[in-house]
C-alpha cells in the first residue's frame, strides 16, 4: 500500500495549474479523479497505450470473416439451392450479414477491452471510503500526488497544494 496526497479542487483552472506546479516540483503524478474528462491534464500523465481499437479491429474482421465463411459454407457447400440461376456464392447479397455482425462484435470486443483497461468492474475500492471522493464524480477535481522525497516533505507538500487553491489535502492509502 502506498500512501499519497489527495488534494481537492473546486474548479478546473486551479486544478490544472496545481498539477502543472506539482509536476514542475518533480512530484510523482499518481492519478486524477474528475467529473468529466479534462484534456488539459495530458501533460501530467502518460498517455498509456490502449488496445481498444486494435481489439475492435481484430474482433470485427474475424467476425465478418466468420459470417461470410458461414454463408459460403451453407450456401455453396452444405445446402446449395438454385434460386432462378443465381450464383451460389452471391457475394453482393452476402455482404450485409458480415458487415452488421462484424460491427457488433467489434463493439463487444471494444467494450470488453475497455473494462479490462479501466479496471472495471471494481465495486469496492479504498478510495470510496474517503468522504470527499464522492464529489469527484460530481463537481470536484481530485489530484493524487506523491512528493519526491518520502519522509519530511509531506506537510510542506500539503501546504504547497493548499496554497495553490486546494480546498482540502489529505493523506490516503491507494
Amino acid at each position, binding site marked *: 500500500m502506498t500512501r499519497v496526497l489527495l488534494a481537492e479542487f473546486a474548479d478546473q483552472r486551479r486544478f490544472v495549474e496545481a498539477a502543472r506546479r506539482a509536476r514542475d516540483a518533480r512530484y510523482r503524478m499518481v492519478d486524477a479523479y474528475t*467529473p468529466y474528462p479534462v484534456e488539459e491534464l495530458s501533460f501530467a500523465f502518460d498517455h498509456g497505450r490502449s488496445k481498444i481499437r486494435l481489439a475492435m479491429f481484430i474482433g*470485427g474482421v474475424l467476425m465478418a470473416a466468420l459470417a461470410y465463411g458461414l454463408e459460403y459454407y451453407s450456401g455453396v457447400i452444405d445446402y446449395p439451392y438454385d434460386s432462378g440461376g443465381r450464383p451460389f456464392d*452471391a457475394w453482393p447479397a452476402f455482404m*450485409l450479414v458480415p458487415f452488421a455482425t462484424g*460491427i457488433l462484435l467489434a463493439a463487444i470486443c471494444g*467494450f470488453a*477491452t475497455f473494462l479490462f483497461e*479501466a479496471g472495471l468492474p471494481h465495486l469496492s475500492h479504498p478510495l470510496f471510503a474517503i468522504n470527499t471522493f464522492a464529489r469527484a464524480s460530481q463537481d470536484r477535481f481530485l489530484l493524487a500526488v506523491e512528493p519526491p522525497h518520502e519522509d519530511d516533505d509531506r506537510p510542506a507538500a500539503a501546504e504547497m497544494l493548499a496554497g495553490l487553491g486546494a480546498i482540502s489535502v489529505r493523506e490516503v492509502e491507494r
Partner: protein
Amino acid sequence: MTLAITIPAEQPGETERWTLPEARSLEAVNAIVAAPLLERSSWRWRAWWIGFGISLVMTAAFLLTIFLVFYRGIGIWGVNSTVVWGLAIADYVWWIGIGNAGTLISSMLLLMRQKWRASTNRFAEAMTLFAATVAGIFPIIHLGRPIYFYWLTPYPNTMHVWPQWRSALIWDFWAILSYILFSILFWYVGLIPDFAAMRDRAQSRGPALFYGALALGWRGSWRQWQVYERLHLALACLGVPLVVSLHSVVGMDFAASLMPGWQETIFPPYFVVGAMYSGFAMVACLSALVRWGFRMEALITTAHFDVMAKVMLAAAIIMGLSYATEWFNAWYGGERADRSLVAFEFAGHYAPMFWALLLCNVVIPQAFWWPGIRRSVVAVFVICILINIGMWLERILIIWNTLSHDYLPSAWRIFLPTIWDWMVTFGSLGLFAMMFLIFVRVIPVVSMHEVRKLVAEGEPS
C-alpha cells in the same frame, strides 16, 4: 444546405448558447438531472402516472392483438391476396426509422463536434433502443407462422436446411439484431459515469446499491476517462455506418423486389433520410416533453429546438426532392406500370392520404424557415407531430399504392384496415411510451458528464 451548423466567432460561446444561466455550474447540472430520480417525494408524478396508465392500457391492447394474431392468424388484419403487407410492415418501417435518430444524434453529431447533443443524446438513444425493439416485433408477428421465426438463425438442425442468405428477411433479422445490441452497448457505455454520479449522490442504501452496481465501480480516474473516450469515439465511428446500413436494408426490402414504385435505386438513401427525418421529429417531441416534465428549461433551450428544426427543414427539402425524383423517373423511364402507379398515387383510392403526406412532410415544415417558429417549443412540437404522421402515411402508402396497383390490372385490390390493424398500430405506441416512461424514472435523462464538460468550457479561465 449542410447538416453541420457552423458558429461564427463573434457569437456567444457554446455554453451561453446551449444553457441558461441557472444551469451554468457543475452542481447545478447535477441537481437538475438527479433531483427527479433521487428526491422522489418532492416531485409530483401525477402526469407521469396518467401517462403510464394510458400506456399500460395501450400495451395490453397490443398484447391482445398479438395473441389473436398468433391464435387465429394474420387474416384478422386487412391483408388480402393482393396487398399482402399491411399496417404491420408499414409500422415496422416507421418504427425502425424513428429508431435511427438516436444513434445519428449521438454518433454523427459527436463526430461533427456539435456540442448541443450533450443534453439530448441520452433520451434520444433511449428512444432509439425502444423504437428498434418495438420495430423488431412486427416482422415476427407478420410471419404467417411466427412459431418458426427462429429458422432465421443459422444453426445445425435435423432438417439439414440453412437460412436463405439472399432474402431480405434475413438481412432484416441480422441488421436489427446487431443494431439493437450495438445500441444497448453504446448507451450503457455513455451511462457508466452518470451511474457513478447517481451512486455518489444517493442518500439511501437502495438507490446507492442499484446505481453502484450499474456504475461498475467507476472512479473517474485519468486512465478511466482516457479509455472511455477512446471507446466512445470508436463506437461512434462504427455507429454511423451501422445506422445507415440498417435503414438501407429496410429500403432494400422493397428495392430488391420487382414491383413498380419499389424497384428503384434511390430507395436506400431515401429511406435513410426519411428515417432521420421522422427520428428527429420524434426527438424534438420527446425533448419538449422531457423539458416540461422535468423542468429542464435551463438544459434544453429554445436554441436546441432551433437547430433540430433546421435539420428537419433540410430533411423536408430532401424528402420533397426524393418524391419528385420518383415521379420524374416514372415518367422518364416510360414504363406503363410506373406511370400508371404515379397517376394512382395522385388520383387513386388513397389520394387524400397522399396529399396529406405531401402536406405534412414537405409543405408544413417549410414554416421552419421563420426563426420565430423554430424557437417556439409549441410550434415545433405541433409540426413534429405532423411530420411523424406524414412519415407514417408515407410508409403506409409505399406499401398500399404499389401492392394495390402493380403490373396485373386484374389483381388490383384495395387494402381496408380492420380494428386489429389499428389496435396493433396504436398498441405499439403504448408499448413505446411505457418503456420510455419507465426509463425516465430510473435513469438520468440527460448525460450529466457531457453537459458538465460543456458548462466547464464556458467558465472564465
